[in-house]
């Protein structure tokens, strides 16, 4: 029952309060205020007759104002006023509206417009109930944005497995025309439900399910995704809708594949490497020990050795501070101690393992040098035997010449006797004597040469040996008009040499040099003995400015009993020199030009000297 007044604004105040009173009686003021809407009552002239506190809080002061002023901030009725329609036809209307609140801020709201009748059944007023939608609208926008832009495929399917809704990413991947089609058809181009469908399970038990699936994009390529299905809405028969959220893991799968491939490759390289490889992580735990390393260390147990056990077996440098200062350490010649206590010569390399500056641990690389050492020793032996062999071949020539000399001496002595020619007898006798002496010397030299003794290596200063030789020959050379010069090398570390063997070599070279320098027609002969170190080789050079040799002679000097000294030499000097140098694991070479002089150069690689020293130490121990 509504009691209504005609003109709110024109009514005397007593009448207004009477109407308010009636309204309140009808609604109950309490209810009017408690309604969770903005409530206002307008008459046909758009005057706001009454409103609740919510309305006032939302739109501001309403008394004596028209609704369009309050809602829209304008001064004439709206062009399509829905309230007017309700006044006209009495229908309840629900409309979306946009207005401004008391602070002038634009607001979205939904308005319910309902007619209020008087006792005569005439529509006297319209009640407007507005509910703010601004937040709801924002949420809606956010939700839409999230739904479409989230980097996943999202679909909502009904219990017939038809797609009700799909987000933008899904439509871009699987096609725009997906609405109302079966999910299995869109996802996998199938005609029936997939055999392991998580949505089936969710429909059946109402729980969330996750599974890996492979779909087919609209371009026909495969896509791997992880799909989570969750119940979205229920009906009395069970789950009505399920939401499927799928993350594309094609790229990750591809990366995983590549990673697996790289891992397999490295694992295969490591396990098949002939070099022993061991890795320890930064926490001090052994992580890798390949078969070559196991064999070298004689480690038979399946489990990896502890770091403590490793440190006992590997060179000290692996556990030491070396790697703190350097990224890698390389030892050409060191040794490890196998589990069965065998000392094994190895080439050892240790590296710090890092990734993006972060320490991951360290790795050791072990190269078994046993075969190498054995081959090296065999090669040294072969070279030594080879030198003897070549010498023996050359020996025949020398002996034949001596026999010829002896024969000649006998012939001449006999002829002298026959002819009574004492001069011829004397000459023949001298030849006999000379060749006999030469034979004796040759036999002695050869015996010493062929003895095949091993060098007695001692740690000596190479410069000291050179100095002794120069001191020995200085006076003799000066008396013959030849200048002898010593050029010691700077910073040469002591090396393993056989001092007496090296003295023999240098004596031969220097005495040859002096002989060659004496052959200079213009005088001013000079012989220099130079010692230096280059690329881990100790080098002795004998340089003379003597007669020099052509290439034909250079080729022969080390391989035959060769002498340029006529009757004076046995031709064994350079052979002996070469043999001693070879016994030291070194080489000797010559550079020479006729009339300019010669350079004889001895090269002794340090590592071979050290190998020989190591071998002789072992032999001494065995002896």
């Amino acid at each position, binding site marked *: 029952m509504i009691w209504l007044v005609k003109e709110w604004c024109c009514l005397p105040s007593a009448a207004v309060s009477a109407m308010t009173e009636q309204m309140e009686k009808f609604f109950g003021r309490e209810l009017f205020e408690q309604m969770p809407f903005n409530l206002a009552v307008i008459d046909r002239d758009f005057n706001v007759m009454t409103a609740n506190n919510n309305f006032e809080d939302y739109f501001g002061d309403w008394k004596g104002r028209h609704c369009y002023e309050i809602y829209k901030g304008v001064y004439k009725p709206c062009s399509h006023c829905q309230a007017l329609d309700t006044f006209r036809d009495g229908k309840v209307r629900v409309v979306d509206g946009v207005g401004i609140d008391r602070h002038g801020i634009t607001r979205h709201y939904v308005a319910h417009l309902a007619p209020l009748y008087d006792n005569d059944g005439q529509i006297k007023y319209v009640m407007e109930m507005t509910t703010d939608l601004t937040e709801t609208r924002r949420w809606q926008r956010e939700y839409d944005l999230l739904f479409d832009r989230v980097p996943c495929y999202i679909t909502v399917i009904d219990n017939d497995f038809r797609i009700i809704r799909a987000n933008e990413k899904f439509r871009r991947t699987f096609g725009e025309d997906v609405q109302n089609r079966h999910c299995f058809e869109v996802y996998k181009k199938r005609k029936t439900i997939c055999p392991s469908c998580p949505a089936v399970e969710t429909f059946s038990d109402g729980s969330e399910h996750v599974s890996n699936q492979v779909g087919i994009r609209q371009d026909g390529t495969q896509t791997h995704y992880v799909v989570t299905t969750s119940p979205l809405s229920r009906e009395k028969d069970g789950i009505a809708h399920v939401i499927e959220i799928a993350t594309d893991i094609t790229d990750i799968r591809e990366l995983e594949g590549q990673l697996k491939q790289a891992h397999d490759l490295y694992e295969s390289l490591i396990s098949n490497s002939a070099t022993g490889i061991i890795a320890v992580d930064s926490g001090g735990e052994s992580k890798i020990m390949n078969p070559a390393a196991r064999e070298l260390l004689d480690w038979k147990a399946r489990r990896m050795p502890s770091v403590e056990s490793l440190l006992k077996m590997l060179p000290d440098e692996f556990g030491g501070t070396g790697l703190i200062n350097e990224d890698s350490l390389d030892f050409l010649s060191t040794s490890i101690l196998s589990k069965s206590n065998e000392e094994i010569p190895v080439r050892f390399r240790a590296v710090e393992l890092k990734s993006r500056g972060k320490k991951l641990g360290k790795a050791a690389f072990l190269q078994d040098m046993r075969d190498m050492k054995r081959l090296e020793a065999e090669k040294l032996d072969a070279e030594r035997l080879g030198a003897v062999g070549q010498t023996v071949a050359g020996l025949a020539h*020398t002996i*034949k010449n001596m026999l010829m000399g002896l024969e*000649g*001496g006998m*012939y001449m002595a006999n002829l002298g006797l026959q002819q009574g020619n004492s001069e011829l007898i004397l*000459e023949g006798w001298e030849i006999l004597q000379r*060749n006999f002496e030469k034979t004796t010397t040759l036999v002695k030299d050869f015996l010493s040469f062929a003895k095949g003794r091993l060098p007695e290596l001692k740690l000596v200063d190479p410069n000291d040996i050179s100095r002794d030789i120069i001191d020995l020959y200085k006076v003799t050379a000066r008396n013959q008009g030849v200048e002898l010069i010593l050029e010691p090398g700077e910073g040469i570390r002591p090396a393993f040499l056989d001092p007496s063997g090296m003295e023999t070599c240098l004596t031969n070279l220097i005495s040859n040099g002096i002989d060659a320098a004496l052959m200079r027609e213009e005088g001013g002969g000079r012989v220099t003995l130079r010692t230096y170190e280059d690329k881990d080789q100790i080098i002795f050079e004998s340089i003379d400015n003597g007669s020099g040799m052509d290439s034909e002679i250079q080729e022969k000097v080390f391989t035959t009993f060769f002498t340029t000294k*006529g009757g004076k030499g046995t031709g064994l000097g350079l052979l002996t020199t070469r043999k001693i140098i070879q016994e030291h694991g070194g080489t000797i070479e010559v550079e020479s030009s006729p009339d300019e002089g010669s350079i004889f150069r001895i090269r002794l690689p340090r590592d071979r000297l050290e190998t020989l020293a190591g071998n002789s130490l072992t032999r001494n121990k065995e002896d």
Partner: protein
Amino acid sequence: MEEKSLKTILVVEDEPDVVSYLVTFFTTNGYNVVSATDGKKGYEKAKANHPDLITLDILMPEESGVRMYRNLHDDPTTNEIPVIMITGYRSDFKKFIETRKQVSPPAGYFEKPIDRDAVLEKVKELIG
């Protein structure tokens, strides 16, 4: 006058004692002998003295017998002179030098120590 009619042999040999031996031997057997101690001097003497025969060692300093032998062969003024090799070199060298296409084989080849009668016979056969 008698001296001039003697045939001349050039002995090329680096061992002085062998030189003395061969010089005495050939002189005693009625030849005029000159000598040289290496291939270079030997070739010079061959050109200067025009010997009737040359004995040549193979292995010598300065210039080897092989080079001298080739020079003699290449030089029209000396290539007619018969050469006997007397050497301590391995016997397979004989085969080597005799099978070279560039030079004709030597007129004789004797290994040290020599069989004097055989050498003399060869010399007589070649130059009388």
